[in-house]
């Protein structure tokens, strides 16, 4: 058996040295420093050295601590959770679209039914974006049609047909009486009924804070994204899923 056990590395193999910083809601002084040392000790650092303590206003103290952690990780136990698609850069996404489609990829987005919350939709679609990432409008090879809030599912599908959409983005924030699930099912039904049989159906991507990603198949959609999803993840997924579909076809 090969030994795959590792400790944190400071400057010597096996020394277990780590560094961390944190703030405690305690006025600066000897009591605060002792509290920081105890805090670090309870995190498993032994010894724990409080190397820096600084008052942040009258009620808080900021600390930098160095210490030895006894934690050992067996690399054989490490599980890598990989998303089913690679995360691409904006440039790579644009290139992929161009070489795959030879035209711009059309995304039609809306919040459907009674839901008036466009926060999530706009975070993904608006150039302004989310979490430091630009929205889908920023990608040269994506054409975004943002229908906004409270769109009727039938109307969404009509527009998707008219725009020859490659993907529908449906955002749902309100979850009263499972409205979000109901609305998404309606979109799937309308799409099945209203999409011309001669052309491939667009991908249906759903987003919202209360969705369970594993429910995609049950709701009749291709992918569900949960809270914290960034525009680049959505764009990367679209490119990946459309490529997969072409391979299958």
């Amino acid at each position, binding site marked *: 058996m090969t030994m795959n056990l590792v400790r944190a590395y400071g400057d010597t193999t096996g020394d277990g040295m780590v560094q961390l*910083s*944190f*703030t405690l809601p305690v006025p600066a002084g000897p009591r605060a420093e002792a509290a920081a040392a105890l805090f670090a000790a309870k995190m498993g650092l032994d010894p724990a050295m409080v190397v820096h303590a*600084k008052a*942040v*206003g009258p009620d*808080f103290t*900021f600390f930098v601590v160095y210490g030895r952690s006894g934690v050992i990780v067996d690399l054989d136990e490490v599980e890598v959770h990989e998303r089913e698609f690679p995360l691409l850069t904006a440039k790579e996404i644009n290139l992929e679209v161009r070489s795959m489609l030879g035209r711009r990829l059309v995304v039609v987005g809306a919040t459907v039914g009674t839901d008036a919350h*466009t*926060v999530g939709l*706009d*975070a993904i679609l*608006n*150039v*302004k974006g989310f*979490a*430091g990432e*630009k929205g889908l*409008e*920023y990608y*040269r090879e994506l054409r975004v049609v*943002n229908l*906004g809030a409270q769109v009727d599912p039938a109307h969404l599908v009509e527009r998707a047909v008219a725009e020859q959409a490659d993907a529908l983005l449906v955002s749902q924030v309100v979850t009263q009486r499972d409205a979000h699930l109901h609305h998404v099912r309606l979109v799937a039904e309308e799409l099945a009924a209203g999409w011309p049989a001669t052309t491939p159906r667009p991908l249906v991507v759903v987003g919202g804070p209360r969705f369970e990603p594993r429910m995609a198949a049950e709701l009749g959609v291709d992918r569900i994204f949960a809270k914290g999803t960034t525009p680049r993840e959505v764009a990367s997924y679209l490119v990946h899923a459309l490529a997969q579909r072409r391979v299958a076809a």
Partner: protein
Amino acid sequence: MTDTVRRNLLRLDQRTVRRARALAERAAAPVIELARTHTTTSVERAVLRLAGLTGADAEGIPWVNRLVDAVAADVGLGHGVALPVWHELRRGGHTDLAALAQKAAAGGVAFAVPEGRERQSAVTASRRAVARGIATIDRNRKTRDRLLRKLGDPPKPWIYLIVATGDIHEDIPQAQAAAREGADVIAVIRSTGQSLLDYVPEGATREGFAGTYATQENFRLMRAALDDVSAELGRYVRLTNYASGLCMPEIATLAGLERLDMMLNDCMYGIIFRDINPRRTFIDQRFSRQIHARAGIVINTGEDNYLTTADAVDAAHTVVVSQLLNERFGLEAGLQDWQLGLGHAFEINPALPEQFRLELAHAQLVRELFPNAPLKYMPPTKHMTGNVFFGYLLDAFFNLAGVMTDQSILLVGMMTEGIVTPFLSDRDLALENVRYVRDACAGLAEDFRPAPDGFVATRARQVLAESVELLERIADDGLFTAIADGTFGVTRRPADGGRGADGVVAHADDYLNPATELLEATA
């Protein structure tokens, strides 16, 4: 602040500078003409707010929205709301605007446009009502001037810090703490998506998405809290919010009524980044700037944003072009040079060789082009990574560039930018960074003398030349065409696209806006 750095260190050709300004004026002219001859739903709602109409119905929709919608449904907005509203107020014997709005919302009023003597009495009554709002704005400006004299105005660069918890009652202690730690300007960032709401929420709010709603009551609460801490510190702490989005004119008005000190107010930001209709935006920004001019508010423009989408080297000249346009639109609306907080940013990829010299060239160019403007310099965001240690270093270089080129307002860069909402300690460390650079390099601007044909001066002259080239194209093709072509922030926005287009109305011959009249009469 030394005058030496604002002298012509870069050897800019002053004829080229004048040509750039003349081109900006030519490009802006047709847009200004459009703004002078059109109104929007939000401009009309701002008129009602100046006349004192506040409050909202049970669904949270403000009475100003209900009243403007009712007038629009009966007689359209081409005459302005003032004529039909004050005519009805007198004719119907309503006790006040709120009573009229409630009745109108219930469908119990038929508005008409008065003529002859009836028109004259509506004109007089509406002027009187709106003048009361303008008087409040004037009083607030006097109060600010008095407090600045009494408490003292902090030296530049002003340190600008953002708070945003979503809950105004959490924001207040955080803002006060930030002021105690050295912030000269507090900005309360708005809830995500407020710019796309076509109404201004009412009251004190405790829940927002990644920010706090801009409401009149939130403005009042925060200004009062900062007045307290200003008195405690012996230094006037300024308050900033965002006059942008579909309600730009109303938010500008509320800022004037509640003595905010600076407002984000860009001529094109909403178009590019929020897909708001271009015409709507330009009409709204003119009215907003007339209010800001009157209120003594410093505006901050948003050129920094272009560099988050476009490349900061390739697109450097688009920043200068936008600054010249913002300057032109601002001056036309009555703002003075000291109120033009033109924006720019430190966003060049740090992996690029000579990145810092390029940044110095851009920052010094802007400083010399706008010697009397309180320039707002924005820290790196695009190239901040999870490596907070490197981010801290990059922020120090940003602070250094700001001090060397004598920038006026420094937004405090956070090493956790784009990673997590800043911790209390992140903000403290960031302020320590600014203080160190500002104190250690105090007066360094005096010693910064770029060689006349060196890298910095040459690069600055090149950016100016590219700006003139682009301005020539815009002046010839028209600003709307340039925006539709994706000139700014690489985003294409056609003139008839975007949100809020249906809220734009051409003036009828008898259009009346008592607010614009009063603001222009004394401008």
